[in-house]
């Protein structure tokens, strides 16, 4: 998709990206941040759906099934997710190179969303040693999430 210009950039995030750092977690789908070439279209993801349909990948609810995984394409919706996508790492998945969001960005995206499962993700990332409290604090501060991080620390990391 990137090669033919349907998307400009992408990176895996959410639970499937988290598993690069932590123990396996239960999840139903794979989430991919994307920067689309035609961001001015009303249906921002239309190009991706058209490309996938032409390749025989069928829609499944809000996702598109790619192999075993229903895959949700999410436009990089904020400066934080934009940075997470741009600074993603390239990881090897059985011989295939994948862009994957870094642990610190995963943690701060989770902090910004704030559901119980997102907060659990932050704890799992901290527990795995893939990101430090200082790294999260500093990134959170850059994205106006200092108070959210303070609340999280007080609630869950109050030694």
């Amino acid at each position: 998709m990137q090669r033919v210009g349907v998307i400009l950039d992408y990176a895996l995030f959410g639970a499937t990206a988290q598993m690069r750092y932590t123990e396996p977690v239960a999840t139903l789908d794979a989430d991919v941040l994307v920067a689309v070439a035609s961001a001015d279209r009303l249906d921002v993801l239309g190009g991706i759906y058209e490309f996938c349909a032409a390749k025989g990948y069928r829609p499944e609810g809000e996702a598109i099934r790619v192999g075993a995984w229903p895959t949700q394409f999410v436009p990089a919706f904020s400066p934080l997710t934009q940075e997470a996508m741009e600074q993603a790492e390239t990881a090897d998945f059985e011989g295939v190179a994948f862009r994957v969001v870094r642990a610190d960005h995963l943690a701060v995206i989770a902090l910004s969303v704030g559901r119980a499962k997102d907060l659990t993700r932050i704890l799992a990332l901290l527990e795995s040693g893939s990101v430090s409290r200082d790294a999260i604090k500093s990134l959170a501060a850059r994205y106006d999430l200092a108070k959210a991080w303070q609340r999280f620390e007080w609630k869950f990391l109050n030694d």
Partner: protein
Amino acid sequence: MTDLEQMLERQAQWQKSRQSLTWPEKIRMAEQVRESVRQLRAQPRPTIPEPPTR
């Protein structure tokens, strides 16, 4: 260390050992449990009875 502490310690060690699997191995494990998770989530949630009022 009590029996319970030993059990929790063993569980923690087991979880840590899963963390050191490769990323593809962990994704495959998640794939294997996904159908069960989907079925569990599709089930209606049990209702929690209201506490008795005085």
